[in-house]
């Protein structure tokens, strides 16, 4: 739930999604769901020379499970807030386990 | 519904208790082997180790110190060094 909420705060930001098959896609995050599936607008493959078959893809949906990394603009991330939320979630998970 | 069905770890509780704080060998599906002092283990086979060493071809290739290993990578855990 933590990362679902986190990605919701990044909607309308420019992100780069690196897939497990090495393809990098840059675009504006338009929506995200609990599986971290994502919808990107104005999307483009970062190295379109290597993957020319994707140059015309502008609006796309990425299944969460094929994602390896998401490169984020650090200006859009409040690290203090994130760390506090992480500690809260860890605490909640621990209490649930008992 | 006893505690054993609720908590996947409690069935192996005695075994885990007996090897906690001792040196264990953790083998991953990738073939990688780690030795370390077992801090703890949970129902996913997530493992935390102290003094963790990574072994390849019988030689220590890396000292990790403390390490957390994600359970889905674990093939088996063996007691003893």
């Amino acid at each position, binding site marked *: 739930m933590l990362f679902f909420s986190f990605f919701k705060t990044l909607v309308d930001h420019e992100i780069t999604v690196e897939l497990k098959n090495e393809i990098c896609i840059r675009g504006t995050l338009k929506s995200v769901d609990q599986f971290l599936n994502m919808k990107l607008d104005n999307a483009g493959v970062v190295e379109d020379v290597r993957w020319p078959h994707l140059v015309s893809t502008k609006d796309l949906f990425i299944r969460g499970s094929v994602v*390896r990394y998401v490169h984020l603009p650090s200006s859009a991330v409040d690290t203090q807030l994130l760390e506090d939320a992480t500690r809260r979630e860890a605490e909640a998970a621990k209490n649930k386990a008992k | 519904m006893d505690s054993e069905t609720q908590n996947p770890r409690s069935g192996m509780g005695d075994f885990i208790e007996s090897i906690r704080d001792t040196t264990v060998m953790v083998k991953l599906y990738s073939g990688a082997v780690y030795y370390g002092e077992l801090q*703890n283990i949970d129902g996913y086979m997530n493992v935390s180790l102290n003094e963790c060493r990574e072994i390849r071809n019988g030689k220590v290739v890396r000292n*990790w110190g403390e390490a957390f290993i994600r359970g889905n990578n674990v093939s088996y855990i063996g007691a003893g060094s």
Partner: protein
Amino acid sequence: MADVEVGVATEVPEPLELVRLCVDEVVIVKLRGDRELKGRLHAYDSHLNLVLGDVEETIYIVDDEDEDVESVRTIKKQSEMLFVRGDSVVLVSPTR
């Protein structure tokens, strides 16, 4: 039920506790596919999804035509802020 609890009275931190103690610390993360990350841990969850800051990624490329003479090339990449999906994670270790 109650005496089961007594049986594990010596409460030991679960493995994820180790990761919790790494928040706001620099960690090394080993990933599937011969990759490694070093960066400051800002967030994690129980799947080991992570957010790292000031990250250096190292990709190991093993050219093992010969079993004995395995030469390893590395590629390094930098990233200011990185989300890592947990299913790629193998190991997390604090740097000291």
